[in-house]
């Protein structure tokens, strides 16, 4: 059986940028912010490309749902090794549930049996879309993968959990979300960037899917968290201990020696 992998990629504000909120309450000011592929999606894409390079998959399709500028993100995905790309174009911010519905439609159209995606996007920090997609498709899932071994249509996935590293067998079709330590993504080489320009990138309007993407959550307000008061520089370990005892944060048992 041939295996097609779908990798959803999101265009987000680059991880090192400290966002500022617009003074009109309209949320983060990202008009001039440096944008990049969500780092977890990059890891998922790298894993998919490696599986294809190992002969375990036949095709890697990168999908983005977002503004026209997300074409740039998809070109990067193509330069990193995706075979083709689809942009579902919309100017609106789409919630994870609707994203999962659109992805489910694309999975069905494409006959894909594996979706590899980031565990979360670093802008909204929702941590939802992967399991939502698995739920809609009725597929098995593995979250926060730090290792994936694929054989005979089963993925043996090591997941990062609060209790340690849990390994599960997930027969395909499945949705697997990528955690930080799954791999180290490559950098696109210049020849691959050139080649990516010739790879197919299809743009489709959101309306073509006939999916209701109206938001279910009303965004009432976005504000800055309270600033922490500037702290105190303590001069010595003894000074530190005295301060912590004063604040009743550590037991005042033994006298300072």
């Amino acid at each position: 059986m041939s295996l097609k992998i779908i990798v959803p990629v999101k265009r987000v504000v680059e991880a090192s940028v400290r966002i500022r909120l617009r003074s009109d309450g309209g949320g983060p000011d990202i008009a001039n912010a440096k944008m990049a592929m969500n780092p977890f999606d990059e890891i998922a894409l790298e894993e998919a490309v490696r599986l294809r390079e190992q002969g375990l998959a036949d095709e890697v399709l990168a999908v983005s749902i977002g503004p026209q500028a997300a074409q740039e993100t998809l070109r990067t995905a193509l330069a990193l090794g995706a075979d083709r790309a689809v942009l579902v174009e919309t100017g609106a911010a789409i919630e994870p549930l609707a994203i999962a519905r659109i992805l489910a439609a694309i999975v069905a159209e494409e006959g894909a049996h594996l979706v590899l995606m980031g565990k979360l996007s670093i802008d909204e920090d929702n941590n939802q879309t992967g399991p939502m997609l698995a739920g809609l498709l009725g597929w098995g899932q593995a979250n926060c993968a730090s290792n994936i071994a694929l054989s005979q249509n089963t993925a043996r996935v090591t997941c990062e959990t609060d209790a340690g590293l849990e390994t599960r067998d997930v027969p395909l079709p499945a949705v697997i979300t990528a955690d930080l330590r799954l791999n180290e993504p490559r950098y696109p080489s210049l020849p691959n960037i050139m080649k990516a320009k010739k790879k197919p990138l299809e743009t489709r309007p959101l309306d073509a899917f006939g999916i209701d993407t109206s938001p279910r959550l009303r965004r009432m307000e976005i504000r800055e968290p309270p600033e922490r008061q500037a702290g105190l520089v303590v001069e010595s370990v003894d000074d530190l201990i005295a301060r912590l005892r004063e604040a009743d944060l550590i037991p005042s048992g033994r006298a300072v020696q």
Partner: protein
Amino acid sequence: MTILVLADHHDGMLAGTVSRVVTAAREIGGTIDILVAGHDCGAIAAAAAEIAGVNRVFCADDPRYEHGPAERIADLLVSLAPGYDVLMAPASSAAKAIMPRVAAMLDVMQVSEIVAVRGPDRFDRRIYAGNAILTVEAQDSCKVLTVRASAFADAGRGAAAPIEPIAPIEGPALSSFVSLEASRSDRPDLATARVVVSGGRALRSKESFAELILPLADRLEAAVGASRAAVDASFVGNDVQVGQTGRIVAPDLYIACGISGAIQHLAGMKDSRVIVAINTDAQAPIMRLADFALVADIFEALPELTRKL
């Protein structure tokens, strides 16, 4: 309102986060039931029944719920959902896999990792690595929430809620457990610890992390945390990584040792009540955030601190 809380548990013990989620549930207001799904989980259900404010505990005790398979537990929750206005769980690794699946199956948009309850359907959550607070109003008739437990107080004990066994849901497994490489620790859990001692890249090695951080944590009965750099360098296991993509903590006292304070790390700890930073670099971002900053070499300061406590 009728509220169902999915219990998190490890090693036969109810997670301390569940009681904090009950506090969030009480702020929403209504009848609060708890679901415990597992195998040989009677003691866990008994512990859940003691949480103040709990009306009833459902116990789905069956081999098929051993090791918390997300797909099966999601099916169970979906089967119980018609009786509830709100389904909620601590934002643990288990719930992050289960709850969105439940939400999608119910055609509900989940509200992730709430840090405050503003009203029965209005909640605060952090976005952009904690750099903004977003207030949302959930408009679905059933609400699916995960809760950042560190943002809520423990509900306390004293209840004696009835425990009702419930039958498992039939259906395919979709995935199967192979193994767990558990990181065992007698220390308090990171998510609910009163004190956290964290180490960073400046610890240099696994050995020095163990020699400097662990005795201090022992002394303070603290949980141990780490920066991503320390985890990536294998000084310590991934399950203690504090940060945007790891564990989110808000203890009374957070001691950051040799951690510079990348945005992603700060997102995981900056709601701590008091932050202590020990670093040779007075300009490190964490030093500006700290309530008490000590410019010192951790290799000298930590042994001295441990000795003098």
